């Protein structure tokens, strides 16, 4: 019995931190309608700064901690002012989500450059000795954690409900247009909420630092936990954030203690999916609905960049020829392998584009299907000696099965909750890949996967693999382009633009969404299998959540809704680390920065920029943005 209480206390301490970060999510979402994934990164920066000031420089804690929090907040506001705030005026919410994911990567890269990759452990603020209450032992640091959580919650509540500033923030949350008519400076409020969320994250970071070891990439974990907590609770509700955080903390700790530490995350995630089925928009719902202003509709239809018919044909032939001749020009095996990897990922990306670019269904767990395909094919070929083709097909069948089961959850959800459910799926597959050591080889990976072969012909060299992948890519691309220019593609785009209207037109939205989802799952599975066969090895982080986020980034950087564009994003993000090998330390930072700049300056992706360039070159004034935009603006 006391054991249980002890475990719950531990769970509460973990949950309190999640709750604080979730509060930041809620705050930014309520004021801006966007999700800010960068917070976990700021938490780690603050903790690292605190460590540097307190341990390295030897400042007393009461100076080191406030200075660390202050500096982080200031840095966050400066960064936010040049990235997040201007992006809000131009980008769709899904792109802003990915922009902040880019910010997170950038911050992690910055931490890596400054503090290196080793873990840091901060000494507890008030000594190592735990507080003892009868049979319950309470680490002294958890008092600080509880205290700061309570202070953050109360402070935020007072600010929001009792002050003029809070009223203005709420006004922006509810109706930005009307708020600006009241003389509220919406831009400044946005920046303020971003800064406040950074401050809250920084407080959480310094408080949690002594209870765990921190590394440059711990921020991602904080972000994901905070995001999950915020969405479980209901993203628009502050009490919901707290409840979500505590729930997540308690579930993980109890699962760790009573079931298995390997599956603790998996169990928490299954619980989360169950909650999403039961309450598709979180446990607590705010009574305030955010108004959608016309601007958001505009942003939703901004993605379509098209080449005129004739030019498109010429460029398709040109691209095909380049693809065919590329291995003759590229002699470096490292770079060719990079291109092959990009080609393999392109298969997933085309599926993801059907799902996201056309049907408008965000998926942050696409690498989960890659993992299912890769591990199934790998396991069967390694342990049962089946041919890779059979393995690949088995992987696709299993992926389709999983996609069908997952669709019970996802078909009910939209927007953020869909993003969360798919993220959860990816994390779930991830933790199974780590947990089922017997099948997957656990964290150290599955070794000895044979190269791909068809009827005795083995694709062992990068060059032979290149032609295989190239051929498959072309077939899939041509097939999908045909599909998307038929009624099916139109139906998907109708769903993206307005699901309700699509329903009203008699489009069976459930069936179309399901088909798009299954296509994306099958393609991801295929690409995951090929990936495993190409590397002769598969480990969880190769197909983990970072990969899922990277896939979305590739898609958006390349150009969403174009099918072809994502290959450019894939090539860019895959080849960059290969080409800039000597600067490996800066890799994370640069790829984050590149993402952020891509979103800010090339909102239609590289493909969109190319189309624009070609159109100017040929003097062809193809309307870059479809009529939907003009129609929307007329309101």
């Amino acid at each position, binding site marked *: 019995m006391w054991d249980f209480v002890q475990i719950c206390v531990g769970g509460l301490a973990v949950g309190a931190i999640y709750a604080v970060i979730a509060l930041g999510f809620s705050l930014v979402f309520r004021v801006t309608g966007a999700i800010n994934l960068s917070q976990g990164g700021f938490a780690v920066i603050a903790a690292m700064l605190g460590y540097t000031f307190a341990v390295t420089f030897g400042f007393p804690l009461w100076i080191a901690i406030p200075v660390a929090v202050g500096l982080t907040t200031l840095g966050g506001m400066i960064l936010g002012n040049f990235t997040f705030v201007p992006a809000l005026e131009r980008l769709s919410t899904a792109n802003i989500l990915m922009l902040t994911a880019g910010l997170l990567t950038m911050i992690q890269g910055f931490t890596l450059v400054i503090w290196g990759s080793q873990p840091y452990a901060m000494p507890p603020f008030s000594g190592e000795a735990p507080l003892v209450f009868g049979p319950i032992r309470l680490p002294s640091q958890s008092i600080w954690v509880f205290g700061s959580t309570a202070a953050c919650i109360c402070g935020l509540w007072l600010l929001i409900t009792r002050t*003029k500033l809070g*009223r*203005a923030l*709420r*006004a922006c949350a*509810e*109706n930005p*247009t*009307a*708020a*600006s*008519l*009241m*003389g*509220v*400076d919406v831009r400044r409020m946005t920046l303020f909420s971003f800064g406040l969320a950074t401050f809250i994250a920084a407080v959480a970071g310094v408080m949690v630092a002594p209870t765990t070891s921190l590394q440059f990439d711990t921020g991602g974990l904080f972000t994901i936990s905070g995001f999950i907590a915020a969405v479980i609770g209901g993203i628009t509700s502050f009490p919901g954030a707290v409840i979500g955080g505590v729930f997540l903390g308690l579930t993980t700790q109890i699962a760790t203690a009573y079931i298995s530490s390997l599956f603790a995350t998996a169990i928490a995630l299954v619980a989360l999916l169950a909650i999403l089925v039961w309450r598709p928009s979180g446990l607590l719902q*705010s*009574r*305030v*609905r955010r*108004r959608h202003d016309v601007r958001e509709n505009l942003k939703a239809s901004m993605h379509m960049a098209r080449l005129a018919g004739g030019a498109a044909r010429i460029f398709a032939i040109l691209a095909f020829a380049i693809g065919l001749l590329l291995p003759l020009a590229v002699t470096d095996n490292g770079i060719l392998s990079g291109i092959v990897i990009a080609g393999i990922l392109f298969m997933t990306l085309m599926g993801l584009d059907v799902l996201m670019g056309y049907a408008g269904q965000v998926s942050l767990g696409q690498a989960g299907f890659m993992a299912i395909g890769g591990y199934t094919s790998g396991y069967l070929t390694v342990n049962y000696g089946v041919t890779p083709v059979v393995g690949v097909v088995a992987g696709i069948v299993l992926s389709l099965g999983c996609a069908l089961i997952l669709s019970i959850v996802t078909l009910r959800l939209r927007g953020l909750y869909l993003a969360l459910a798919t993220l959860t799926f990816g994390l779930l597959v991830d933790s199974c890949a780590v947990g089922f050591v017997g099948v997957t080889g656990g964290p150290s990976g599955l070794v000895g996967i044979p190269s791909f072969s068809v009827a005795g012909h083995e694709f062992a060299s990068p060059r032979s693999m290149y032609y295989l992948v190239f051929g498959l890519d072309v077939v899939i691309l041509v097939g999908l382009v045909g599909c998307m220019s038929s009624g099916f593609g139109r139906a998907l785009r109708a769903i993206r633009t307005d699901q309700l209207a699509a329903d009203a037109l008699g489009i069976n939205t459930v069936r179309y969404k399901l088909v798009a989802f299954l296509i994306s799952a099958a393609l991801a599975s295929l690409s995951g299998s090929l990936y495993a066969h190409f590397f002769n090895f598969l480990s969880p982080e190769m197909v983990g959540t970072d990969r899922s986020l990277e896939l979305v980034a590739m898609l958006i950087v390349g150009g969403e809704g174009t099918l072809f564009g994502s290959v450019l994003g894939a090539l860019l993000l895959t080849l960059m680390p290969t080409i800039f090998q000597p600067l490996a330390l800066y890799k994370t930072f640069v790829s984050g920065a590149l993402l952020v700049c891509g979103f800010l300056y090339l909102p239609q992706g590289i493909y969109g920029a190319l189309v624009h360039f070609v159109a100017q070159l040929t003097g062809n004034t193809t309307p870059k*943005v479809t009529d939907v*935009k*003009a129609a929307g*603006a*007329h309101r």
Partner: protein
Amino acid sequence: MPFLELNRVSVSYSNTPVLRDINLYVERGEIVTLVGANGAGKSTLVKAISGLVRSQTGEILVNGEPIQRLPPSARLRLGIAHVPEGRQIFSGMTVMENLRLGAHASPADVIAERFEAVWRLFPVLKARQAELAGNFSGGQQQMLAIARGLMSGPRILLLDEPSLGVAPLLVNEIFKLIRTLRDRGITTILAEQNARQALAIADRAYVFENGKVALSGLSKDLLDSPEVASRYLGIGSGTAVSEMTSAKLAERLRTALSVVA
């Protein structure tokens, strides 16, 4: 010098022109109405004056000072209050909070007296000040939206479709209110589709057609001219036409019946 003056103002949304070369002036204490069909550009003009949309060319002058580059908050401080179409009240907040937001840009010491003035005009709102604004009827929400606009202590009130979605009895009350406000020295620009009622209370009117001012003049002249009324406002001779048609129909029926008989 007119109080508010627009010289050759044009507005386009992503290269689609919505307003072209608008010239307009409003004298102190006037009620000026903008009438015209849906999509004629009335709302856009109001938004251009309050700063919600930026005009690409031309100038907007208040007391001779150009304001077209100022953000909405600065224009609010100059005394331009915009009561937007569809009310746009903060439905998750109480009446009190809505009104306080209306005075967001005003100094703290004038807020008490503004409240007094608003309570005198809208006793209903005072009685229900702690209730959530979202629970109000359309007409009451419109009252609240106007009250919220008045909380900034405006010299020019921009009213965009105040009769939209409001019960007819309350519409009369709102129009009466606009006259009361004029008596207190508030200049009003009223964009309305309900042209007959708008012209009845306004001093002057501008008729909009396809983003241009098609006609302007004293509203009583516009009301009195049957040709103008039928062409632009859909009132007046419209009824005459239908009377003629029904007379003809009756005539034909009668002949048809007589043939049968």
